[in-house]
């Protein structure tokens, strides 16, 4: 088994095909989108492939050590082009092909007009455990 992280981005990912900001959707479209994500997680749990999933607030801050005795530096409230992660889901699947298949399925979540967003999701493998046999 291999664990993968599926990352949803607020910003930083290529534009989706159905690129309408969520606040322009109808409330029903938003509900349908949320329901799709819940159903997706539920299906993964039933198939034994679900590990974890969380949503993240849109605003993040970059923080850096600024020297002995000084408070850490933050990047301030100004507009940024940095990537912003909207949330993640961790899956545990038999291999890369299955991970891609599931990411594709999640990317088909409905958006404006009830049509799939075709949102880009980032798929990142976790480091596995070292195999017992190597030499």
């Amino acid at each position, binding site marked *: *088994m291999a*664990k993968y992280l599926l990352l949803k981005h607020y910003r930083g990912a290529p534009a989706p095909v159905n690129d309408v900001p969520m606040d322009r959707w109808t409330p029903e479209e938003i509900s349908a989108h949320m329901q799709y994500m819940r159903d997706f997680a539920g299906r993964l*749990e*039933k*198939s*034994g*492939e*679900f*590990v*974890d999933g969380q949503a993240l607030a849109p605003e993040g801050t970059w923080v850096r050590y600024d020297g002995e005795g000084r408070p850490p530096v933050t990047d301030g409230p100004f507009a940024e082009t940095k990537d912003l992660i909207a949330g993640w889901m961790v899956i*545990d*699947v*038999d291999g890369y092909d299955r991970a891609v298949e599931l990411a594709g399925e999640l990317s088909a979540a409905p958006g404006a007009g009830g049509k799939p967003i075709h949102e880009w999701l980032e798929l990142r*493998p976790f*480091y*596995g*455990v*070292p*195999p*017992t*046999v190597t*030499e």
Partner: protein
Amino acid sequence: MDEVLLRTLTPGVLGVLVRRGADFAAAEDAVQDALVEAVRVWPEDPPRDPKGWLVTVAWRKFLDAARADTARRRREDRVEEEPEPGPAPAADDTLQLYFLCAHPSLTPSSAVALTLRAVGGLTTRQIAQAYLVPEATMAQRISRAKRTVSGVRFDTPGDLATVLRVLYLVFNEGYSGDVDLSAEAVRLTRQLAAAVDHPEVAGLLALMLLHHARRASRTAPDGSLVPLAEQDRSRWDTAAIAEGVAVLQAALARDRLGEFQAQAAVAALHADAPTAGETDWVQIVEWYDELVRLTDSPVVRLNRAVAVGEADGPRAGLAELAALDAALPRYAAVAAYLHEREGDLATAARLYAEAAHQASDLAERDHLTRQAARLNARLRGGGDEEGR
């Protein structure tokens, strides 16, 4: 309370229930219930015949559950259905269980989970911990697997090769959580070897024993990887090595060579060398030739290139490597090692860094990064007698 004894009895008890006509999923649940009961009762009141006790309790649990499912059944049914009490039959259905749990209709991960649960007697929680997934996820994985195999007839002969692959997967998973999966895989393979007389089962058991024997020396206390040549050989488990070699020799004597026996032979030659320098690389190359013939696997060819590099020198190893696909996992690591031995430190450092980037586990990545850093420091230092 001997938890391992309990787990050893599990497949036999499950086998009896299924043989008596219980469907697999229900029988498996009943056996788990009986195991929980045993953990509760045995410390105070140990049974004389543990397996017989488990069969009796598991069968009662099964009947209770079956009755709960069919409320219309008359109470008297139980009397008719309950078999005469007595010792469990000596005939063992364990082997059929192994086949069922490794059934080709299951995905590898489902087969592993089901084997650990039904043959290994582990709880769902223990398996979930070992694979670092939530218990609910593992419970679903196991119940799906049980549903998948529930239509399979229990007496259909299974595919031994599939069983061995599943056990090998378990072994390679190492350990996390409170169960050592490698040790569990050794135990299950030992049990299988007692039930079925086949040289490849023995070969797999030997392979596991030989690798398991060296495990303590494979990582430093900080978790970092120690390559074979630098391992403290005094920490190898000599009893396990001796057993592995004996099991392997008996298997090889039967002259039905298979993949696991050949791999075990390589492991035995490593285990046999008093120092890394005394490793019989020429013989190891010969075993890799056998493995190439048996499997034609590119990974085996890559390992063979390493052995050729040791037996005939790095230039010969690099020549072998040139014929292989550079996209193979660990190709860059092997190339880096051979280039370093040939004296081309700059190329080796670059390849180690590339290999680190491609590594699929952390200990390996860190090890390869250190190798690259070591060579880069030497290159910066200049005038190194081993540099070019």
